[in-house]
């Protein structure tokens, strides 16, 4: 119990300001720039670039790694980081040239091998990396990571080192925006130490980003410090960040109020009603690259008819998005009007209103469409969701209420909870669902391609509903083959039109990222992935 030297009874907001100097356990002693403390969760997987698929591990890797490209925290645009240039003439073979003078924080210079070795490791079936499929576009992936059986090669044949500063990538198909995917953390370079002493590296990862790891106590906290030798332009503006693992977001928020913590990057739903009163303008709520949709089981023949398309459109019109986002989510969600996310920006492919009337609440037309389409297959709509995280029950019940009201039938739609996320994934993986299910999508990189191809292309990795449409596939292929980004975006949007006309999935809302911080901090912002831009935060 940390007893404060003063015991006053101030209002909540002043308490935060007053107690800051008294008890921020991570205060200073670092000479020069001060260190801030931020909330963290225990990463689910070992901290390796190609093995990290959740936000907590991603936060750390984003601080200690820089890849070929880096996404601009404001615009989401991919800018060169370690890469000097990435060029192509045919949208299929890419030549990568590296900047000189970059090194890892242990002094090892970054060469073409640092990337090629890391990618070969990430793709290899032997390494058990959960993000291995990111290398799936590179030639030779099927040998290194076959769907069944043993791998017949240890390295991707599509990667060739030309010299220390240059390597080439050959893809299995045309993919014009491929260079823009290379800012994703799975594509980070790895130092030799990663391969020679793997256990030691995992205990204390070494990268080439603006921060280095000073200490890491698994499950408890990680201390990151500014790396003075960092060659990049986005140097850290603070002395470092102490990431503290919290058992519960609510406790983190309480600690922020009490002045024990500087930064919370997910304000819990229970606190949303009074967050403005508590924190004033030290609270941020901006769109992130996350969209929530309802997917349908197209492997079930009842959903794969011409009439069912009308039913899906009717259901979409029966959902009162504006009301649900306001009352259930306190406006931390924005009603969706397309299948991407506002963080892409208009030039990146976000098109407000692309969904048209189908995403507007219209009870009379909704009822009419559902009836014309032959009613709900099976007579009752069961929306499946996992009940263990993310308070999905509340919104599923609300969506069902909305649909029931439109149809004038209390039992037309019911929620169907599944105990854990793993069970939920299991049901989806075995094609066992007979009705719609929640399908959240958090983008891997800010590209319209990432919102469409992995989710709706025939047999794509995350096409859980098994929706398939020849015209859509063809337009995506065409878009990928374009060398002009503008034309590519247009073609992707045409493909999105095909998705809309068949209502392959009902878009619900875009999710926002939120953050709250103490009076010690300034320049707090969230990037398009809703992760705080740590290196830009100023302390004091």
């Amino acid at each position, binding site marked *: *119990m*940390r*007893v*404060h030297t003063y*015991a*006053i*009874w101030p209002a*909540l907001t002043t*308490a935060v300001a007053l107690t800051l100097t008294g008890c921020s*356990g991570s205060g200073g002693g670092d000479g020069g720039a001060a260190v801030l403390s931020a909330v963290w969760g*225990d*990463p*689910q*997987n*070992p901290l390796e670039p190609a093995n990290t*698929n*959740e936000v907590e591990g991603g936060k750390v890797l984003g601080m200690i790694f820089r890849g070929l490209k880096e996404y601009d925290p404001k615009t989401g645009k991919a800018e060169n980081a370690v890469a000097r240039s990435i060029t192509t003439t045919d949208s299929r073979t890419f030549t990568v040239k590296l900047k000189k003078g970059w090194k890892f924080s242990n002094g090892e210079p970054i060469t073409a091998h640092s990337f090629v070795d890391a990618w070969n490791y990430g793709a290899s*079936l032997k390494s*058990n*990396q*959960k993000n*291995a*499929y990111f290398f799936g576009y590179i030639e030779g992936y099927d040998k290194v*990571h076959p*769907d*069944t059986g043993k791998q017949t090669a240890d390295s991707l044949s599509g990667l060739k080192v030309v010299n220390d500063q240059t390597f080439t990538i050959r893809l299995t198909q045309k993919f014009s925006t491929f260079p823009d995917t290379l800012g994703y953390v799975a594509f980070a370079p790895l130092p030799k130490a990663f391969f020679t002493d793997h256990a030691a590296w995992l205990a204390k990862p070494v990268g080439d980003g603006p921060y280095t790891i000073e200490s890491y106590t*698994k*499950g*408890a*906290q990680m201390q990151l410090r500014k790396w003075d030798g960092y060659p990049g332009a986005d140097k850290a503006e603070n002395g470092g960040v102490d990431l503290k693992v*919290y*058992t*519960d977001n*609510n*406790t*983190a928020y*309480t*600690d922020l*109020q*009490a002045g*024990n913590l500087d930064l919370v990057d997910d304000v819990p739903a229970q606190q949303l009603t009074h967050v403005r009163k508590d924190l004033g303008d030290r609270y941020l709520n901006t769109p992130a690259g996350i969209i929530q949709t309802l997917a349908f089981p197209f492997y079930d023949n009842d959903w794969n008819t011409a009439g069912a398309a009308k039913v899906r459109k009717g259901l979409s019109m029966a959902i009162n998005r504006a009301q649900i986002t306001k009352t259930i989510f306190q406006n931390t969600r924005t009603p969706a009007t397309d299948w991407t996310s506002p963080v892409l920006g208009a030039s990146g492919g976000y098109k407000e209103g692309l969904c048209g009337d189908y995403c507007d609440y219209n009870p009379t037309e909704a009822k009419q469409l559902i009836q014309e389409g032959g009613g709900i297959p099976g007579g009752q709509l069961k929306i499946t969701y996992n009940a*263990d*995280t993310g308070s999905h029950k509340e919104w599923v019940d609300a969506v069902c209420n909305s649909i029931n009201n439109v149809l004038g039938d209390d039992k037309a739609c019911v929620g169907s909870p599944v*105990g*854990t*996320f*793993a*069970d*939920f*994934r*299991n049901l*989806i*993986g075995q094609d066992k669902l007979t009705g719609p299910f929640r*399908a*959240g*999508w*958090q983008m891997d990189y800010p590209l319209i391609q990432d919102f469409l191809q*992995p989710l709706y292309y025939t047999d794509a*990795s*995350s096409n859980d509903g098994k929706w398939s449409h020849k015209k859509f596939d063809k337009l995506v292929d065409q878009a990928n083959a374009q060398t002009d980004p503008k034309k590519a975006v247009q073609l992707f949007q045409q493909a999105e039109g095909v998705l809309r006309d068949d209502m392959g999935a009902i878009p619900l809302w875009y999710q926002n990222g939120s953050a709250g911080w103490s009076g010690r901090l300034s320049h707090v912002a969230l990037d398009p992935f809703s992760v705080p831009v740590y290196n830009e935060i100023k302390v004091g």
Partner: protein
Amino acid sequence: MGHYLIRRLLQMIPVFIGATLLIFLMVNVLGDPVAGLCGDKSCDPATAAQLKKEFGLDRPVLEQYLTYMGHLVTGDFGTAFNGQKVIDLMSSAFPVTIRLTVVAVLLEIVLGLGLGLFTGLSQGRVLDSAILLLTLVVISIPTFVTGLVLQLLLGVEWSWISPSVSTEAPFSELIVPGLVLASVSLAYVTRLTRTSIAENRRSDYVRTAVAKGLPRRRVVTRHLLRNSLIPVVTFIGTDIGALMGGAIVTERIFNIHGVGYQLYQGIVRQNSQTVVGFVTVLVLVFLVASLLVDLLYAVLDPRIRYA
């Protein structure tokens, strides 16, 4: 006494095997743990198969259980999904929870017994009724409410304590969480002691002791309290295991990285190795605690003999 001890220890074996087998089956029939590992996407089949093989999940459940128990004998609890040894998780989690439990049990004994003795001796007075009412209130309010209210009042409003416990979790930071954890049991101990004292106060041996002219202090401690302790000791003994396992709520509120936290993580991530490992140890704690309680009876009441 020696025979009794050996018999009790032998009896523990089937209980232990039965309990662990049950937990193992429950965790394993829940579904495929690997399915949730790849975030909002599905794992690619090759990696999923490889992971299952690595964690031994591709074998029949009974075989998994036997291998698991075999490893257990050598002190190997397996590996959690994030690559950490479960034994390492335990060595960081158990000391914290044990400290928390010690605080809770001490509070139960000192406050619970003290209040119980006091109310038992001063039955019917205003303070007695007040304490009785208070314990009733504590029992009827869920722990998480008590915890959150104390955290908000003491931690944020008055700034007397830090609302969260630091990683090291020293005793000084665990007093309030310990109080919250102990609160309901504490109320029960108070009521149990009170009833027991009130009953024994009117018994023959107490009247005799008083008639002999023994000092009041000696009558209360040696005669009255000692005999009244048996039901209370039973309660506190079995409560130790319950407190350790039930710390999930308290640990979550006060950010304590103990057994409750690890169990919660294990369950949410469907990490069978973590869940089964921690529950196994908790089963052992229960068994040992109940054995100690039984042995303590003989100390409290020499009439109780073990054949």
